[in-house]
């Protein structure tokens, strides 16, 4: 289980029209680890995150060069089914975005889209996902109430449960706690620790303390380039490059 590659990007370039947002990114992301992507606004970390499940495809005028492999297969190959890719590589966003449906239906949504009809299977999987997202105890008595009645922190864990329900390999998190209060943030961070047993997690965060707390590996992006990747402990105690040092000690950015 140690250090098996899940994703690997090789010489990845990404363009929004004429603007090169990512330049020659090569990185291996290991299975069952939490990898944090850090860097100042506009450094390309979220763009890179969205390359990993082809969320950027939805933006007109983009172009990708180089390769991104998931379990050794090129995810930009023409034969790839993007819907299936996004089932394997789930995503959680900055702002909790539950559907205006019941708690149950939110979590069951992906399963239904994937053709699960059996009521018992649906119920089992919804409960399992809510347990995994550490939300079950808080919602088990009101599972058929609207998800919109949950607090922000609960909504975000619901979105995580929704992402987990379709049993992805990887969960991408784009600043998942930036809209939450400290207690809800701590719950999400604890959850991330628990989830890495079963999932590979890649998180974009603006909080360096959060990256330091939750991740095993930290990757520092700056102006579209991957500057330094390393064990989180090393990056935050003795980074190898001055640029990384300056960023994490708050000298710029």
């Amino acid at each position, binding site marked *: 289980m140690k250090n098996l590659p899940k994703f690997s990007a090789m010489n990845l370039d990404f363009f929004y029209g004429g603007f090169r947002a990512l330049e020659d990114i090569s990185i291996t992301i290991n299975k069952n680890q939490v990898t944090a992507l850090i860097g100042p606004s506009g450094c390309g970390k979220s763009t890179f995150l969205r390359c990993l499940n082809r969320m950027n495809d939805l933006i007109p005028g983009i172009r990708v060069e180089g390769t991104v492999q998931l379990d050794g297969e090129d995810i930009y190959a023409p034969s790839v089914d993007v819907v299936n890719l996004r089932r394997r590589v789930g995503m959680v966003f900055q702002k909790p975005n539950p559907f205006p449906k019941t708690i149950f239906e939110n979590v069951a949504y992906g399963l239904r889209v994937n053709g699960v009809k059996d009521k018992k299977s649906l119920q089992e999987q919804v409960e399992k996902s809510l347990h995994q997202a550490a939300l079950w105890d808080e919602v088990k008595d009101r599972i058929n109430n609207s998800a919109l009645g949950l607090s922000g922190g609960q909504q975000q864990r619901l979105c995580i449960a929704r992402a987990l329900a379709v049993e992805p390999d990887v969960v991408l998190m784009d600043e998942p706690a930036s809209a939450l209060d400290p207690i809800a943030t701590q719950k999400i961070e604890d959850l991330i620790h628990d989830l890495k047993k079963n999932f590979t997690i890649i998180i974009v965060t603006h909080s*360096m*303390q959060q990256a*330091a707390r939750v991740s095993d590996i930290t990757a520092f992006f700056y102006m579209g380039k991957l500057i330094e990747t390393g064990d989180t402990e090393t990056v*935050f*105690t*003795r*980074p190898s490059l001055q640029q990384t*040092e300056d960023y*994490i*000690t*708050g*000298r*710029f*950015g």
Partner: protein
Amino acid sequence: MEDRKHFIDELEKLKMMLLNMAALTQKAFIRANQAYLTRDEALSREIIDGDRAINDIEVQIDNLSLRLLALEQPMARDLRLIIGTTRISSELERIADQAVNIAERTLFLCQHPPLAPIQAMDRLMEVTGNMLDHAIRSFADLDPKKAMSIREMDDAADQWTMEVLQTLIDNMVQNFPAGEKRLINTRRSVQTIIISRCLERVGDHSTNIGEHVAFISTGINVKHQKVL
């Protein structure tokens, strides 16, 4: 581009506090040696009284360090500077205690006729004084090379300590017939041996400071390791 100006100013203040503490400690050490060599009781008392100021700075350094750790979430070199500074201040505090110890022994020795000068003691003061000086300068410049060079002087310090010990053992067993004079001679010899031990400890603490400076500047923990 310099952000976090307030925090960086606070770190600079922490560094200045440590350098101030180092200067007072070094002064106490040099004056303790001088008091011993010149049998100066008044100077010995000044050193003993002056220790409080050094202890006070240690407490201030601890408080500021704790505050910066709690409130600023320092990372990388800033984190290492704060951790290293608290460690160095505790080494300095112990060095200052050794200076006080030397001054207290000197007060005792001043009550009795002097021993013949011990050359090895002069050498020991010289080498441990150099070690402390290197330690402080290596911190001021955050120079890991200078910091690690302190270790190389430690063998000489140990050697001169042994030589002082041997000289005083010889003195105790050879020179006096049994009686009051022999008792006094044994007492002053033992007190002088304690002084040599204090000096040797100053060398050890200076070596430790060097290791902390190497940690601050490189991030590598060199304690109990042969090479940097």
